[in-house]
């Protein structure tokens, strides 16, 4: 059993406190995320997903409560060094990460993170190359300016920039936004591969199909609070709760539920089209078998 990678206790966060514009983005969050799993974080726009993840990466200082990542624990009074420690364990790929590229070449940009961690030029270069290779980024483009790449390639460089710091935990904020179906598929395969290599993955997403297909655990936020924490199966099984949080089940699940309403007996909620087809076939075969 892997020990919990992240533990969040009584966490609250207020933007611009003590001003007329103070805004409580998170209140009283309690969560545990297991190591080497894929956790999906979902919720309506403005529910606090990005805020929570920035706290986990030590980019914001909690107003209340604590966050423990591995052996590091931070509270509102922790020192700057503690928050920096947090950042060493956690890698954060922001939404549209390609818009943060700045260096003159791909390799320089990927080396930026490792160099900031205090690595030598050589070690940083080695790390950068390793990260790019893992993303199967073409070797002949290493010296190219990152601004002369296609959208999909730019996104890979940006992700490599985070991977090169070798974090144990990787947070991805809507990594597939703006990509065409092919690009989306490739990126999710990459995420799956990183997970298999032993990384703990946290995936912020609006795509329920991705949740159903890839996540071990789902955390649903609603108005800055945890509205659900459990398996995708549990979440999608309870329609009334889903509605209350303002979410819609993936198409396969909705389809199966409608079939059930029509009297077709489906035993297991399908999490993807394959499972749905199988369920339908089971029912059909059962019926034809019965008919004989």
């Amino acid at each position, binding site marked *: 059993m892997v020990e919990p990678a992240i533990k969040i206790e009584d966490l609250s966060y207020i933007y611009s406190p003590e001003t007329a514009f103070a805004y409580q983005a998170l209140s009283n969050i309690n969560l545990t995320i297991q190591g080497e799993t894929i956790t999906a974080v979902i919720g*309506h*726009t*403005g529910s606090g997903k990005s805020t929570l993840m920035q706290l986990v990466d030590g980019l914001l200082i909690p107003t209340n409560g604590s966050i423990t990542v591995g052996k590091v624990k931070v509270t509102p009074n922790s020192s700057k060094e503690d928050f920096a420690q947090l950042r060493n364990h956690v890698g954060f790929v922001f939404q549209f990460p390609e818009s943060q590229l700045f260096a003159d070449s791909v390799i320089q940009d990927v080396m930026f993170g490792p160099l900031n961690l205090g690595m030598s030029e050589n070690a940083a270069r080695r790390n950068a190359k390793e990260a790019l290779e893992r993303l199967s980024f073409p070797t002949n483009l290493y010296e190219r300016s990152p601004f002369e790449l*296609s*959208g*999909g390639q730019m996104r890979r460089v940006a992700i490599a920039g985070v991977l090169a710091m070798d974090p144990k935990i990787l947070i991805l904020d809507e990594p597939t*936004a*703006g*990509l*065409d*179906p*092919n*690009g989306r598929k490739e990126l999710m395969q990459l995420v799956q591969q990183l997970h298999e290599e032993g990384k703990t993955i946290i995936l912020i997403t*609006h*795509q*329920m199909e991705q949740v159903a297909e890839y996540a071990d655990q789902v955390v649903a936020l609603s108005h800055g609070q945890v509205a659900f924490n459990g398996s995708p199966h549990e979440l999608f099984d309870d329609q009334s709760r889903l509605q209350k949080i*303002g979410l*819609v089940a993936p*198409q*396969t699940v909705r*389809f199966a539920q*409608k*079939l059930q309403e*029509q*009297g*077709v007996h489906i035993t297991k909620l399908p999490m993807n*089209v*394959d499972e*749905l*087809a*199988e369920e*339908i*076939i089971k029912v*059909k075969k059962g*019926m034809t078998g019965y008919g004989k």
Partner: protein
Amino acid sequence: MAIVEVKGVSYTYPGSNEPTLNDITVSFPTKEWTTIIGHNGSGKSTLARLIDELIPTSAGEIIVDGVPVDAEHVGDVHQKIGFVFQNPENQFVGTTVEDDVAFGLENHQVPRDKMQFRIKQALNDVNMLEFAKKEPAQLSGGQKQRVAIAGILSLRPKILIFDEATSMLDPQARLNIIQLLKKLKVEKGFTIIAISHDPAEAVAGDNVVILDHGKIMASGKTTDILTNHDLMNRYNLGLPFTEQLKAKLKAKGIPSPEVYLDEEQMIQWLSQQ
């Protein structure tokens, strides 16, 4: 009857050595919804911009509602076509919602006393009237996109072009916008040209055009194109949900009807078996 006719159009961006569009001929039927689909970089946006004279046509001819699209008729063409873009942030010009809707009216020199009514009406059509005084920073992406739609509705165009206008929204907001468009098409008789790389969005429309590397690969009724799995897979487009299901069932030896079925029809068919 086609309200937009594109005849033999090619286009090469200045400084580029390959044509982005290559001898395109296609037409968009009046009061129908046509979706252009194709992978990233296939030339969809370029085609849409040519139709609205946002870039000048270099070869071929485009006719919009009887008016030739050229430098001389830019004003007319812009009057007939309303254009909504992908990024809700980068088309919100006004400092408040009502100012943004007013922007187009100001450009078309609509007198001030007529503006108020038209702004109100347009905001009402997209259910944003109560947000008239809000600033863009106080709106969600979906709300901004509604304001963009109101901005063009106030100009009373005949044709609406949506260049991936929902791709940056969350699924709920996306669904709402598609519902809104369906309503507008039926109630006001707009011709809609939508661009998407997601075939799931094409199911809302009447016709589909497939673009690949600057060429038209297929065009026709939505139901015909989306059920043609060979075609869709050849251009790496992915299938809409019900078609995916049909394909899987067929592979497992359960054949389903050849015609296109939406979710409801599919459920009907399955439960009647």
